[in-house]
């Protein structure tokens, strides 16, 4: 999941004192010079046969979940329209909003990795649909997320750092409303559609892919324009409630689960146990989130499909810090850390490892 403060990375000049998150800035150079970029990350040892079994792709789980997703989207949209103008419509739109504005993120993520389905075209189809729903350029965000996995929470390298330091608390709070992120996403799409890619985008997208990124943005913008025209022509909010606006009013679950992936944990490390968080969650949130609550495991072994992450967790947990016991527990850990980072940006939660675990892998020269 990639709920970001500045999706696609910051530009030089918009940086925090002491830290330069821009992908073309001072810390980017430093990360390359110190070996933090494209580093050799810690991985828990796991027998090849076990890992191979966990990596196996299946169509069944994602077909079931996708059919249910579309069915629930259809049902909630029907209710919202049928009861339009009455209070009875509200719960339908609340459900539709989360299914559209939050579940799209996890579908985007898993299909983007190519792990949701065994059949490639199914991954591609869901990826394109979910990219549109989450308002992300399907070309550029594929590359952005690849970088996030190469250089997870490395300052100046990772374009998907949600909690920059010192944290902007208002910005983090406002993220739950979805508006800031949507405005930023819309602005990027408009710029892309006009043929403009930022320096950050040019840093992580190969030049050969730039025309595809621009074309994809134009397709997205054309659909939004058609939706707006339909709303104006029909003198109705319903087209916008169905397409576009759910990215605002339904994004809260995506933000709620996304912010606890890495916030309050370490920057500039090469061990995902130090910068990612695994959180036990209720089954509904796990379905919306497609098991990305097993986030340390996902970063350590991104080839394991979402439906096998609970089994991967069982195989690795002897080597991981204890998982947070709930979403609430994760926030109880993350919020004090983020608040302390306002005055002490170098602060990060460092969890004790169980006696069965191997020590944290430290950055050479910083151990």
């Amino acid at each position, binding site marked *: 999941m990639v709920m970001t403060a500045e999706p696609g990375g910051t530009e030089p000049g918009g940086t925090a004192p002491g830290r330069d998150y821009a992908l073309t800035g001072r810390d980017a150079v430093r990360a390359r010079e110190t070996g933090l970029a*494209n580093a050799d990350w810690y991985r828990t040892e796991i027998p090849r046969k076990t890992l*191979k079994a966990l*990596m*196996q*792709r299946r169509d069944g789980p994602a077909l079931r979940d996708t059919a249910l997703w579309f069915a629930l989207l259809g049902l909630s949209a029907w209710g919202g329209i049928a009861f339009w103008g009455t209070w009875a419509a509200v719960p339908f739109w609340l459900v539709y909003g989360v299914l559209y504005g939050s579940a799209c993120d996890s579908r985007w993520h898993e299909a983007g*990795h*190519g*792990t949701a389905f*065994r059949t*490639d075209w199914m991954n591609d189809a869901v990826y394109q649909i979910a990219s549109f729903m989450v308002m992300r350029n399907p070309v550029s965000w*594929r*590359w952005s997320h*690849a970088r996030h*996995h*190469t250089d997870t929470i490395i300052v100046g390298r990772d374009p998907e750092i949600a909690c920059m330091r010192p944290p902007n608390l208002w910005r983090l709070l406002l993220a739950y409303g979805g508006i800031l992120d949507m405005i930023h996403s819309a602005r990027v799409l408009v710029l892309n559609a006009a043929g403009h890619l930022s320096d950050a985008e040019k840093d992580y997208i*190969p030049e*050969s*892919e730039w025309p595809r990124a621009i074309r994809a943005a134009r397709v997205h913008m054309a659909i939004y324009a058609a939706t707006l025209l339909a709303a104006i022509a029909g003198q109705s909010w319903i087209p916008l409630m169905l397409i576009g606006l759910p990215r605002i009013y339904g994004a809260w679950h995506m933000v709620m689960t996304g912010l606890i992936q890495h916030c309050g944990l370490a920057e500039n490390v090469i061990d995902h146990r130090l910068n990612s968080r695994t959180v036990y969650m209720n089954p509904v949130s796990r379905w919306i989130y497609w098991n990305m609550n097993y986030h340390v495991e996902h970063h350590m*072994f*991104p*080839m394991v499909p979402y439906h096998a992450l609970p089994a991967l967790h069982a195989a690795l947990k002897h080597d991981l810090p204890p998982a947070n016991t709930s979403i609430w527990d994760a926030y109880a850990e993350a919020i004090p850390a983020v608040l302390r980072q306002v005055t002490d940006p170098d602060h990060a939660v460092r969890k004790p490892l169980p006696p069965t675990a191997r020590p944290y892998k430290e950055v050479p020269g910083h151990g």
Partner: protein
Amino acid sequence: MADWVRVCPLDEIDPEDVIRFDHAGRTYAVYRAEDGTPFATDGLCTHEQVHLADGLVLGDAIECPKHNGRFNIRTGAALRAPVCVDLRTWPARVTDGHIEIEIPT
């Protein structure tokens, strides 16, 4: 100069699987396809220098363990982003129950 180099007994690699093979300062990925036929490629992904032997063989494709990019193991062709540059392939054969690959020595 290239020569045939013995890698391992054939049954050491399961069908639709891969192992890492290091030789003369270079690293290779040696595969068996679903039908058991051996293949060999350079060992590191052309995207970000990750060992492909930690990845997953899916039919005729090897998927990189880091970013899920894919190559065709028979031709080395890049199949799926973020992989853009093809992988170099090396001849492979079975001799006396062992996989051999023809590589620089």
